[in-house]
C-alpha cells in the first residue's frame, strides 16, 4: 500500500480562526483523512514530528519565543510551508502592537484597566511565561515560506482547493472568488 503523504498544522500568534475555517470543509474532512495522514497538529495531538511532511500549514505570526521555535521546527520537517491567513502573512491584528512599546501594552492590561485589582503593582513575569518578542513578525521574516493563502480567514473552500492542488502537484490556481483580502 502506498504511504499517504503527511500534513502538519500549527497555530502561532493568531486567533485559531484559520483552523476553524479549515474545519469549515465540513464533511470533506472524511475525504481528507483518506488523502493524507495528519502529523504534528492540534487535529491528532502528535507532539513531535514523526516523519517528513509534504505540507505544513501555518496560522498566525510570531509574537513570542515559542512561536519562533515552532515555526523553525515546521520549516525543518515540511517540504512545502504555507502561510495560511493574514496573521501568518503580515502579522495582521496582533501586529497592531508593533507601533506601541510592549511595556505600555502590559501596563494598560495589568495596572491601568478600570477593573484591575493589583495592590502590589504586579506585571506577570513568572518564568513559566515565554518571553514576548519586541514586535510581531510575519512568518516569512523568520523562515522561508513557499505559499501564501490570504484572507482573515481564507475560506474553507480556499484551504481545501489549495491543499488538494498541492497534494496533486498541480499549480495553485485558485479562482478569483476564493481569493479574499479581508
Amino acid at each position: 500500500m502506498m504511504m499517504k503523504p503527511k500534513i502538519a498544522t500549527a497555530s502561532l500568534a493568531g486567533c485559531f480562526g484559520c483552523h476553524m475555517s479549515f474545519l469549515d470543509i465540513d464533511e470533506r474532512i472524511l475525504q481528507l483523512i483518506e488523502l493524507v495522514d495528519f502529523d504534528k497538529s492540534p487535529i491528532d495531538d502528535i507532539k513531535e514530528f514523526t516523519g517528513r511532511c509534504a505540507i505544513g500549514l501555518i496560522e498566525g505570526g510570531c509574537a513570542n519565543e515559542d512561536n519562533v521555535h515552532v515555526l523553525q521546527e515546521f520549516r525543518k520537517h515540511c517540504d512545502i510551508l504555507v502561510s495560511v491567513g493574514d496573521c501568518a502573512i503580515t502579522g495582521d491584528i496582533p501586529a497592531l502592537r508593533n507601533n506601541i512599546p510592549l511595556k505600555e501594552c502590559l501596563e494598560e492590561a495589568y495596572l491601568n484597566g478600570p477593573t484591575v485589582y493589583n495592590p502590589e503593582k504586579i506585571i506577570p513575569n513568572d518564568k513559566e511565561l515565554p518571553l514576548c518578542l519586541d514586535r510581531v513578525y510575519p512568518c516569512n521574516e523568520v523562515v522561508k515560506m513557499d505559499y501564501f493563502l490570504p484572507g482573515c480567514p481564507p475560506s474553507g473552500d480556499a484551504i481545501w482547493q489549495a491543499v488538494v492542488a498541492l497534494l496533486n502537484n498541480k499549480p495553485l490556481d485558485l479562482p478569483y472568488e476564493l481569493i479574499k483580502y479581508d
Partner: protein
Amino acid sequence: MGITKRVVIEPVTRVEGHGKVSLLLDENNKVTQARFHVVEFRGFERFIQGRPYWEIPVLVQRLCGICPVSHHLAAAKAMDRIVGADKLTPAAEKIRRLMHYGQMFQSHALHFFHLCSPDLLFGFDADPKTRNIIGVAIKYPELAIQGVMMRKYGQEIIKATAGKKIHGTGAIPGGVNKNLSIAERDIFLKDINQMFDWAKSALNIAKDYTLKNLDKLKPFASFDSNHLSLVRSDGAMDLYHGNLRAITADGKKIFDQVDYSNYCDYLTEEVKSWSYMKFPFIKSLGPKDGWYRVGPLARVNTCDFIDTPLAEAARKEFKALTGGKPNNITMAYHWTRMIELLHSIEKINELLHDKDLQGTDLVVKGKRRNEAVGLIEAPRGTLFHHYKVDDNGLIVMANLIVSTTNNNEAFNRSVQKVAADHIDGVAKITEGLLNHIEVAIRAYDPCLSCATHAMGKMPLIVTLYDHNGNEIDRKIKE
C-alpha cells in the same frame, strides 16, 4: 527540606491562550501547589486605542476565531450605546439574535462532538491514538457526521446574517447591515427538523453519560462555587441580553438584576505574577470568596426558567438531580451545554418563523455618548466589553473581560482537585493521569482549549525535575 519535584504539563502548539499546568510535589509526592497558567499576551486593550469606534466590532472579534460572533456582538452592543441607539429596530435585534444562536449552536456542537465526545465515548484512560475525532469518525461515523453537520448548520446561519462564517461584518453600531431573505430562510427551515432530532439525541448522550457515571463524576474536579450570568428581567435565560445575576453555591442571590453598565461596581480582577489571565471576583465578597463560574452550568444554575419548551423540560430534569439547588459538578457542564444546544435550535426555529427578519429598517441612531459597556452570554460565559471614545470617535480606553477569564480561579481549583485526588502520593506519572487533568480543564470549554485541541485533544509534555532542576522523568502524550 526534602526533594521537591516540579511537574509541568505544557500544551505545545498553542495560540488562543497558551496554557500550561505546573505542580509542585514534596518528598512524599504530596502536591503542595497546583497552578494553571495562561502564557500568552496580546495587548488588545492598548493597541485598539486610537482606532475609530465603528471599526471595533470587526477588529476585536479577531481575539478569537472560535466564537468571533460573541466579540462582534458584545462590541456592537457597546457601540450601539456610543451612537445613542438605545433600542434597535425589531429586524436588527432579531437578526443579531439569530446570528448569536447560530454561533451558540455551532460552538456547542464543536465542543461536544469534535473535542469531548472522544473522552466520553472511549473513556479518560482510552488509547490516546484513537481518543480523538478521527477515532470517533471511524468507530461512530454517524455520530461524527451529526457533529460536523450541526456545526455546519450554525456556521451557515452566521454566514447568512454576518456575511462570513468567521469574522463577519453583519452587526454595525446601531443595528445590522442586512436582513434575511425568504430564500435564505427557507434553506434553514428545510433542515431544521433534522437539527432538532440531532440536538435531542446529543442532549440524551450527555445526560445518560452523566447519570450513568454519576458516582465517578460527582467528586471529579468539583467544588462549591458562586455562579454568574446575565438573566432576562423576568429571570429567564437570555443569551443575548439581560442583567447580571450572581448566586452562591447553594442558590442564595449575591446580586440580581444589575444593569451591566455598572459592572465595575460589582466586579474586579486580581493580577497574579504567574499568569497573563487575570482573576475576577465579586467585590463585596473579596478575592478569597468572591470568585465565581460562568458558562452553561452557571447559566442553567442562575436562571429561573428557560423560555423554550424542550430546553425547559430538560432544565427541570437537570435541576431535579440536585433538588432544585445549584449544581456544582464540574462535569455537568457537558449536560448543560447540550441543554443550551437544544435551546438554541428552538430559538433559531422561533426566529426563522418571525417576519421581522425580512424587515428593512435596520439601523437607528441617537445622541452620541463617550462611554459604553456591552455584554453578552458567549458560548463559554459572560463576556464584558467596555469602551471610552473621544469626541473624534477614536477609542481612548478599552477593558475586556473575556468569558474564559471569569473561570480562571475555577480552572485552578479543578486542577488542584484532580491533583489532590489523583496525583497526591503517586510516584509515577501516567498518560491516563494527564488526561484526567485535561478532561477537567476541557469541561469548561475554555477558549484556550479550543485553540489547543480544537480538533482533538491537547498534546502534553510532562517533565519531572528534582529540586536542582535535573530532569528525572519525562512523558510525552501524543
